[in-house]
């Protein structure tokens, strides 16, 4: 298929492991960039051993997370812990526009994998590094995962029940945020490179992304407005109501900041007497009595199914929506009409679907040109055509376990 994405002229090397850098690479590749994913020999990226696997049987080509995150990429195996591997990476970097990485700081500052080394033969090279704690900060050397970053950002202390453990944002949400902002840093640095006519290194910290861009820290609100967030379980304090409310067959998100919407909701329940309760006169203060106030209208909600409620709320322009389960959003008519789910045909796995485009471009659309690559599928193209290695040099690399 002809590549038409807006980034079709971009050549990228992806180094590192697991979700964050792979999501950055996917965002680039799905918009047409050529992304070569460098993986460990034999076992590959840890995405490949993570799952979920069909029938829960582990298989290096069948991990669901890998199949989603590595669409459109090429796979090359190369052991970056060896000097030969590092030298080959430096040669390859001479011929690309961009390196994206989520290497640990120890690896990043390894003199053979640093920006300075990788740009040795390419002074126009741009590198974007996704770090957890930062690149020139006090805790730069500390180890971290999506869980660590969520905890460190402040986001968790606002999620969960006040008498229970705080909650993280599940499924490594922080790593996905790291991926998107690492990809943004890359495109910003590419623009800067053209202004300077010289390459450069850019980086982000996942902790700062979560604390600042995603609002996890709550510090500006506290310093300037004296608002200190708390965790309130199935509710949120602030204004009332803002909560996850039981229906007869599940839960519904109830939230309204606009009085007209609240009045329409009251109206829907035939204007009960309790609606005049003085504790509801200023809904910014009502949360204090939420247990008593909930008791007025929860039975009405509990007597109806989510779909009955959704229909009523939509018709009356009230912004309350059902908590859909994973299967229910997959089967929703809206996403089917939008053409969101994307069917893939994979030589080893067979056919399956993945979540589709996060944005629709009118001229240069998001596309899946090829499924996630098999481990080392592009070794020959890479070592032979790109790097010009002879057959014996290549078989030597394999023998030494470097590829």
């Amino acid at each position: 298929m002809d590549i038409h994405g807006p980034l079709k002229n971009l050549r990228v090397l992806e180094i590192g492991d697991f979700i964050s850098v792979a999501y950055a690479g996917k965002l680039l590749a799905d918009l047409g960039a050529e992304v070569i994913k460098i993986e460990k020999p034999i076992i590959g990226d840890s995405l490949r051993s993570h799952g979920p696997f069909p029938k829960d049987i582990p298989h290096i080509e069948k991990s669901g997370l890998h199949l989603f995150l590595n669409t459109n990429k090429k796979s090359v195996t190369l052991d970056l812990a060896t000097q030969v591997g590092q030298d080959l990476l430096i040669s390859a970097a001479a011929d690309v526009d961009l390196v994206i990485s989520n290497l640990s700081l120890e690896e990043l500052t390894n003199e053979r994998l640093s920006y300075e080394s990788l740009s040795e033969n390419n002074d126009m090279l741009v590198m974007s590094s996704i770090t957890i704690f930062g690149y020139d900060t006090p805790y730069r050397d500390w180890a971290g995962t999506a869980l660590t970053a969520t905890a460190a950002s402040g986001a968790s202390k606002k999620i969960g029940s006040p008498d229970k453990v705080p909650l993280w944002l599940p499924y490594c949400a922080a790593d996905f945020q790291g991926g998107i902002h690492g990809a943004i840093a890359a495109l910003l640095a590419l623009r800067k490179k053209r202004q300077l006519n010289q390459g450069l290194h850019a980086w982000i910290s996942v902790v700062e992304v979560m604390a600042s861009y995603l609002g996890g820290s709550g510090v500006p609100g506290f310093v300037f407005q004296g608002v200190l967030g708390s965790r309130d379980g199935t509710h949120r304090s602030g204004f009332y109501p803002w909560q996850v409310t039981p229906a007869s067959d599940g839960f519904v998100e109830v939230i309204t900041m606009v009085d007209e919407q609240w009045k329409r909701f009251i109206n829907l329940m035939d204007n009960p007497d309790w609606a005049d309760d003085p504790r509801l006169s200023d809904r910014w203060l009502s949360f204090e009595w939420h247990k008593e106030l909930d008791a007025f209208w929860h039975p009405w909600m509990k007597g109806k199914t989510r779909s009955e409620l959704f229909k009523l709320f939509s018709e009356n322009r009230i912004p309350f929506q059902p908590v859909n389960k994973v299967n229910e959003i997959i089967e929703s008519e809206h996403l089917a009409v939008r053409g969101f789910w994307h069917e893939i045909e994979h030589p080893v796995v067979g056919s399956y679907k993945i979540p589709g485009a996060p944005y629709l471009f009118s001229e240069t659309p998001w596309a899946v040109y090829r499924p996630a690559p098999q481990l080392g599928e592009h070794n020959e193209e890479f070592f032979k055509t790109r790097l010009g290695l002879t057959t014996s040099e290549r078989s030597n690399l394999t023998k030494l376990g470097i590829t």
Partner: protein
Amino acid sequence: MTATTNGPLSGIRVIDHGHVWAGPLLGMSFKDMGAEVIKIQSPTGGSGVSMAGKGMAGTATRDAVDISDPMAYHAFDRGKKSLSLDLQSEDGKEIYKKLIAVSDVVVENFSARVMPSLGLGFDVLTRINPKIILASLSATGATDGPWRDLVTYGPSLAALYGIKSVLGYHDSDHPQEDQADLDPTAAGHAFFAILAALESRDTTGRGQHIDIAQGEACIQRIAEPLMDYFLNGRVAGPQGNRYPATAPHGYYKTSGLDEWISISVRNQEEWETFKDLAAQKSEDITNPKFKTLQGRLDNQDELDETIESWTKDYTAMQLTKTLQKSKIPAYPVMGTLDLVNDENLNSLHRTSLTVTDNNFSLDSLYRGVIWKLEKGQGEITGPTPSTGADNDEILIDLLGYDERKVIAFRSNGII
């Protein structure tokens, strides 16, 4: 009054219709990295609802801005220009079209029908300026579909798209409230998409329309349970602090009040190190049933209890330092008050240049610029503008209207 910058987006002019959160944050992203961002606001003050109180999170305010107030440099409209404009009027539309002719990007997060109903849909804008990139952020997308006109907020959208169904304690099916981060997640994806469209425009000379449904950008992060359903038909419920194929993984009670430590062990090698550290205090951790990953996953409640019997006697920071010395991912679960004094986060915020405008400098910065470029760093160049602060500059200097005309626009309520 806005200082010129050498940021990577210098030379790009952005028209910002953002309101509430996603839109203004997206505009701020452009501004901090060097673009010129013109905020369009209603002359009567109706549009541009502020998200968290006057001038703070959202938008330019009708009141005069105190430029020595640090808050004005933390709001999403910092450094932007403000043009007040009545887009319902014919004169207002004419001014707007002239502005489109000299701009690069338009960002809006109205509901899907607003711009077309004003006669300012993408088909109109692209005829005026084929290079224009229009990014429309809506909850459920600009194309047809049963949810197209849904009234929604971030937290209800998270419910609708299945994201909330996995947020909660693993022993209960009642989801917990989230931190309402759909807006900034959509803003991040939109920023990336627009930057990609600019790359393409550099070679083709043509802009385009980008339709960003917040729900579709945000659902990407639950790809793992979505794939599990596609591959196995399994429906995930609330996950607590657990993560598939990883144990230990969670927050553990430490000695202080509501004080916890995050610990995640990524592989067997890290487990051996972790186990040896914990075993100095708690023999139970050496129980053979915890020896393999499968064993730890099968006995996770017991594993977590055993770990907590160790962690509860230490402060979160003490233990973090012990674990980090051995390269085990750990950090205290921070609250807002902890973060005010967090050395690492403060250091991250400070890497963006502080304001030099009007000899005012920020001593403390709580919302820095998150993309760090070793050359061409992001900058905070000015405070939140007051509504219409830049009307004269934009209409006279940029669009070439004469002063009398501008006076007439003002007295007719066009600006």
